[in-house]
């Protein structure tokens, strides 16, 4: 309910929103949980296993109970913390993990079976009959489990990622963080102050305190105004630092537009930041911890600090009559604040025998709450055990609990730092130097007074800056609350009934004890066996207490028992934020050739290769791919075809040692190549297997242009640079990619020379361009290059002009080809032509192939040292046991073979033991009709002429085929020599 005149947001606009279909009113900008509380809504969520009704427990992102689904349609977002989601006009939220409604959930029947659903019960049953797991048990378990539901539709909202840089990253803008930012900002350092909240201030906004003699929130406002005026300080609100990574890199999630009623369409919903900081101050505060007692999960049981947040910031309370239960002075603080706000405080129950009193509030010292009883809507009565052992029961609808504070050490664990147990505050504190360059300050380091936090923040900033060689003037630390932290550790209250530790995952004290009894005594075993700490809050509210219970159950101390590791992210991060930019086509750059638009205009389906798009075929009329492929291949064999080959990698190799360098990186020799000539090259990896192949042209004594396959261009370039810098650093070799500079087109077929004759300035004198020659040409005065090479088996050329002319050149070539009875051809025809010729691609040189396998073994063994030579000479990389490149032709004419089929001897059963090889490439053949294939066959070179069976279980085919030379068409090469 809302308290009239209370809350710092009392002047906020009133807006309408909906929860589970009910229209409600709230104040714009307040957390959904506050608005629901104001309206008397107590049940906001359901627990994971038992579907227990749950109310809000905290006032922060650590909330384990009040998880809701926000929005509807494709963009609906499950598992949103009602404590974080801000109310805006038109906000729609829904309870989740419940049917039909969070307020009345049929699945709550699970709670009745709780005795048999204890820790790890599922490991002991559901095993019979075997097939029932996938069919019966698992689907039922899966349906019952889970929390919210995804929409199942593509994400419709924009998300983004960004980078930021600073000298000092301050994580958290409570008293410590603000002082750190002020100190560093005044010293001129570049500061990023990141705070999870809507407004910076941390607990200062939630407590009735003074700083520097003024209300704490006024001091915050003054500090923020000073920071805002500093150009070197960037204050990032709604921004949670989620992870600490190496060398001062931090991840952070910014909630950009989820609080707006109608955000601009370009505005991202969230932004995931990668912050590079020279130093960081962790000022993440502390989280108040609950105490386990029977029924402590009922709606109305809340953390005391959360209750004060709702009271002071938002002016709402969950009920009219409260009991406060604690073991430290926050019990008094809470009772005092509640009473001052006019809430009836039925009792203050303090486990400390020497607890201070609060005037006007009945105080029970040395007492504990043993249980919270009530109905579906939550707490109605609270049971106490007094110091003298008497039991008492009080009517109350609200129970505020403070079990003390756990420093928010999480980020200090992200680089494997293990927090250290501090007996004095009965809590884990960060280990020294856990994250290089990051200094924890204030409550996250176990300093709990406001004054102490202010001092620690200032000190941490000064130290960080001193590390960077910067002097920061000593800041004047304002006067503030400076009470000692007086705590009597209390984790769980003995008693009947279930006492929750992990609220979300329904892990109780009994579960932890059962785990210990079954010898899951390691904290990791306990966690994994009970699922303690594995829920959406990742144990923020429960890990330490569970550890304490385990320690108790196993007779060890807490530090002996250990702790679990907190891992990134600190708060859950949407996949859309961290993967922003990739949805649709953004996952990788798109590379277009200069002929792309023209190919599309001709109706070519485009296929992707090494990020490039290449035309598959150029259909005419209603041709399918095969018809188009056959026509285009015939066109090349009979007339002339034009294909864009610009995607092949092209590398300029220059320098006095260029030839020597190529001799070293290729399995064959280039130093003997004459200028103006081109040679095929085979490149090995150092492991002796084939890496890539391509042609290399020599343009001058010290100048080569080497080509790579499209897919391997980047890999080859990196490899060559490695060899150049790492293995022959004293050689004069200079490498640069020229792939992008040139638009290069294959012009292939018996009429290719005729076509080029009309194009090239001065015509084409064929006798000056023998097979495997190269040189400069001009076209309309534009300087280009011509190569007499062939991947089709026909007389062929490749002509290259600077890329700006590529689009025009393609049109010109295509038009000329068409006039000669030819035209453009695509990847399918290119493939068909090369299969007839036994030319290999990465279908054959797939990484496991040796030079021996493809019949080029002698090339390697005859050479002096080159990359891969030694490893290629290993016994296992050659010999009759190897599968060797062969061609296949079907026995039955026209039979369709398939790539991926395995090869068996005739009559052999198609099982692994009889496997002889496989088919790599199949294409229509215009030379022979039907289909031709390439593949690998054990000892294949010795088996030409043999009939084998190609078995493709997946496509249901068995094709008898004869083993051929890989080069099935024009083996003498007369056609390409023209």
């Amino acid at each position, binding site marked *: 309910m809302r308290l009239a005149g209370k809350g710092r947001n009392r002047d906020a606009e009133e807006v309408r929103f909906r929860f589970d279909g009910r229209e409600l009113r709230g104040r714009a900008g307040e957390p959904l949980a506050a608005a629901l509380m104001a309206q008397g809504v107590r049940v906001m969520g359901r627990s994971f296993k038992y579907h227990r009704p749950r109310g809000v427990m905290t006032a922060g992102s650590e909330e384990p109970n009040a998880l809701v689904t926000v929005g509807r349609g494709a963009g609906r977002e499950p598992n949103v913390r009602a404590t974080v989601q801000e109310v805006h006009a038109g906000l729609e939220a829904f309870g989740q993990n419940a049917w039909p409604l969070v307020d009345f959930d049929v699945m709550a029947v699970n709670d009745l079976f709780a005795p048999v659903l204890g820790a790890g019960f599922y490991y002991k049953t559901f095993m019979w009959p075997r097939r029932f797991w996938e069919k019966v048990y698992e689907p039922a378990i899966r349906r019952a489990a889970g929390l919210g539901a995804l929409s199942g539709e593509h994400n419709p909202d924009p998300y983004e990622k960004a980078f930021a840089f600073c000298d000092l990253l301050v994580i958290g803008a409570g008293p410590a963080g603000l002082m750190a930012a002020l100190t560093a900002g005044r010293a001129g350092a570049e500061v990023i102050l990141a705070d999870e909240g809507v407004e910076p201030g941390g607990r200062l906004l939630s407590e009735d305190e003074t700083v520097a003699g003024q209300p704490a929130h006024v001091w915050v406002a003054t500090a923020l105004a000073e920071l805002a005026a500093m150009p070197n300080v960037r204050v990032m609100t709604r921004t949670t630092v989620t992870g600490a990574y190496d060398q001062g890199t931090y991840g952070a999630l910014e909630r950009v537009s989820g609080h707006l009623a109608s955000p601009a369409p370009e505005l991202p919903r969230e932004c995931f930041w990668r912050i590079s900081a020279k130093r960081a101050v962790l000022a993440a505060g502390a989280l108040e911890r609950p105490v386990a007692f029977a029924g402590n999960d009922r709606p109305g049981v809340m953390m005391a600090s959360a209750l004060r947040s709702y009271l002071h910031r938002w002016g709402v309370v969950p009920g009219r009559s409260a009991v406060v239960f604690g073991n430290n002075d926050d019990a008094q603080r809470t009772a005092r604040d509640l009473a001052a706000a006019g809430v009836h405080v039925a009792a203050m129950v303090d486990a400390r025998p020497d607890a201070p009193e609060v005037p006007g509030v009945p105080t029970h010292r040395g007492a504990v709450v043993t249980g919270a009883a009530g109905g579906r809507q939550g707490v109605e009565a609270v049971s106490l055990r007094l110091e003298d052992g008497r039991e008492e029961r009080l009517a109350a609808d609200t129970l505020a609990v403070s079990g003390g504070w756990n420093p928010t050490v999480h980020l200090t664990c992200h680089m494997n730092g293990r927090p250290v147990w501090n007996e004095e505050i009965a809590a884990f504190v960060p280990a020294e130097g856990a994250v290089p360059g990051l200094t924890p300050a204030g409550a996250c380091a176990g300093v709990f007074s406001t004054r102490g936090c202010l001092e620690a923040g200032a000190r941490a900033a000064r130290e960080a800056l001193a590390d960077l060689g910067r002097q920061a003037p000593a800041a004047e630390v304002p006067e503030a609350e400076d009470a000692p932290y007086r705590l009597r550790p209390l984790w769980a209250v003995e008693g009947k009934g279930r006492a929750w530790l992990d609220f979300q995952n329904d892990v109780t004290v009994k579960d932890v004890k059962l785990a210990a009894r079954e010898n899951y005594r390691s904290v990791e075993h306990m966690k994994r066996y009970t699922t303690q700490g594995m829920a959406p809050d990742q144990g923020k509210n429960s890990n330490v207490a569970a550890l304490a219970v385990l320690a108790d159950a196993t007779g060890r101390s807490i530090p002996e028992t250990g702790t679990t590791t907190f891992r990134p992210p600190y708060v859950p991060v949407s996949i859309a934020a961290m993967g922003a930019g990739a949805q649709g086509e953004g996952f990788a750059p798109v590379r277009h050739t200069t002929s792309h638009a023209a190919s599309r205009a001709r109706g070519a389906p485009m296929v992707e290769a090494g990020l490039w798009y290449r035309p598959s075929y150029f259909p005419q009329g209603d041709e399918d791919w095969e018809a188009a492929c056959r026509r285009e291949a015939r066109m090349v064999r009979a007339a002339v075809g034009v294909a864009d080959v610009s995607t092949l990698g092209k590398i300029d190799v220059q320098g006095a040692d260029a030839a020597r360098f190529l001799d070293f990186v290729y399995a064959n020799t280039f130093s003997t190549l004459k200028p103006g000539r081109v040679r095929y090259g085979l490149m090995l990896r150092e492991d002796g297997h084939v890496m890539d192949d391509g042609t290399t042209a020599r343009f001058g004594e010290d100048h080569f242009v080497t080509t790579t396959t499209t897919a391997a261009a980047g890999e080859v370039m990196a490899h060559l640079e490695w060899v150049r810098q790492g293995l022959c650093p004293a050689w004069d070799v200079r490498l640069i990619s020229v792939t992008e500079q040139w638009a290069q087109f294959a012009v292939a077929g018996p009429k290719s020379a005729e076509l080029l004759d009309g194009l090239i300035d001065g015509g084409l004198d064929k006798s000056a361009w023998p097979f495997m020659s190269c040189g400069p040409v001009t076209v309309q005065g534009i300087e280009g290059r011509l190569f007499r090479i062939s991947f089709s088996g026909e007389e062929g050329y490749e002509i290259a002009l600077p890329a700006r002319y590529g689009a025009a050149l393609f049109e010109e070539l295509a038009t000329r080809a068409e006039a000669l009875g030819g035209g453009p051809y695509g990847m399918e025809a290119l493939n068909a032509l090369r299969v007839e010729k036994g030319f290999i691609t990465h279908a054959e040189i797939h*990484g496991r192939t040796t030079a021996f396998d493809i019949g080029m073994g002698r090339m390697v063994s005859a050479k002096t040292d080159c990359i891969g030579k030694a490893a290629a000479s290993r016994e296992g990389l050659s010999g009759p046991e190897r599968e060797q490149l062969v061609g296949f032709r079907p026995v039955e004419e026209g039979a369709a073979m398939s790539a991926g089929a395995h090869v068996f001897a005739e009559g052999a059963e198609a099982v692994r033991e009889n496997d002889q090889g496989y088919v790599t490439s199949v294409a229509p053949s215009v030379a022979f009709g039907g289909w031709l294939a390439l593949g690998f066959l054990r000892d294949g070179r010795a088996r030409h002429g043999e009939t084998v069976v190609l078995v493709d279980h997946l496509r249901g085919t068995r094709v008898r085929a004869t083993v051929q030379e890989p080069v099935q068409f024009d083996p003498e090469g007369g056609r390409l020599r023209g």
Partner: protein
Amino acid sequence: MRFSGLKVIKEGLTGNRGWRPHWRDPDPKGAYDMVIIGGGGHGLATAYYLAKEHGITNVAVLEKGYLGGGNVGRNTTIVRANYFLPGNSEFYSHSLKLWESMEEELNFNVMHSQRGLINLFHSDGQRDAFARRGNAMVNQGDDAILLDREGVRQHLPYLDFENTRFPIYGGLYHPRGGTARHDAVAWGYARGADARDVDLIQNCAVTGIDVEQGRVTGVQTTRGAIRAKKVGVVVAGRSSQVAAMAGLRLPIESHVLQAFVTEGLKPAIDHVVSFGMGHFYISQSDKGGLVFGGDLDFYASYAARGNLPMAEHVMEAGMTLMPMIGKAKVLRSWGGIMDMTPDGSPIIDRAPVEGLYLNCGWCYGGFKAVPGSGFSFAHLMATDRHHAPAARYRLDRFATGRGLMDEEGTGAQHNLH
């Protein structure tokens, strides 16, 4: 104690007081017939099969931390037999068969769920490569179905078929592929080994391997010296360090592989989906979390944690493939230390020191291998003969070049996988 639904109900109604420890915590004896270094999935399975298949029970498993604390406790739980190279093919096939009878055998529900695995492909060339793989699977006696685009759509209607960077051409469907509850596998084998009198010794780090005249005689540990005739090293993630205690240098580099889990969600993904082009794979756990991962971070590391570039890459792959998961929130990320061999395949072999046996190099595929690895390694340790399905996992294949198993085709040398 035998587990059953009836037992669970009976205990539930009587306060769950009758449950007993799943395994003992014995002190180490001074000598054993065999010592297994490493109480992860593979080590525990080895001990179990030594006892069960070979009757060798005077065995200690030495674990420096807690049982199942290695990669079996930090993986993405995928179980499959979809390899295609000789050696891998028969091994994983055998391992999958052991998975299929594991629960009955161990009387422990490891929630092995054969929900089907789909490997997507995005070009004709990839289709052919997957056809070759699928045919090898069928040749081996396993299951594989080639799906076209519409076939994939029927199984995975939520993928982005219209507007993704790498359009979906189809998928290789492996119906027997699936997932399991990873920790439970370790616990099940631990319980089974313990019941057969194997000593499982936690918090016992091996600090030295005793070798006399080329023969292993025992190990030094933080809990004293232990003599043994045979010592098995099953410590993926620390293989190089432990092998070094016996003077060995292994063909292994340690790398970090990250994995991620989201908050619990109602069922959204019913299969295991693998998007090789984006180095991304995903499934949904029975608790509702989306469990997914990607490629190695690609630098040698023992830190068991990764960095943002690869984490972001994995999320980006997820967003281009199945943008419906955008609003799922990553709850936790972690890293496992991978024993990377040059060719990406494991080693189950005798070491060059007599009495010393190596089980290592599982790269990022060790989880599904747990039963097969334990079975074959136990066979090798017990009989000194290679078990047929694992007979190709030789240490000397790199020296000879014979029988390299480079499934990815990226090269049989380091850092290409």
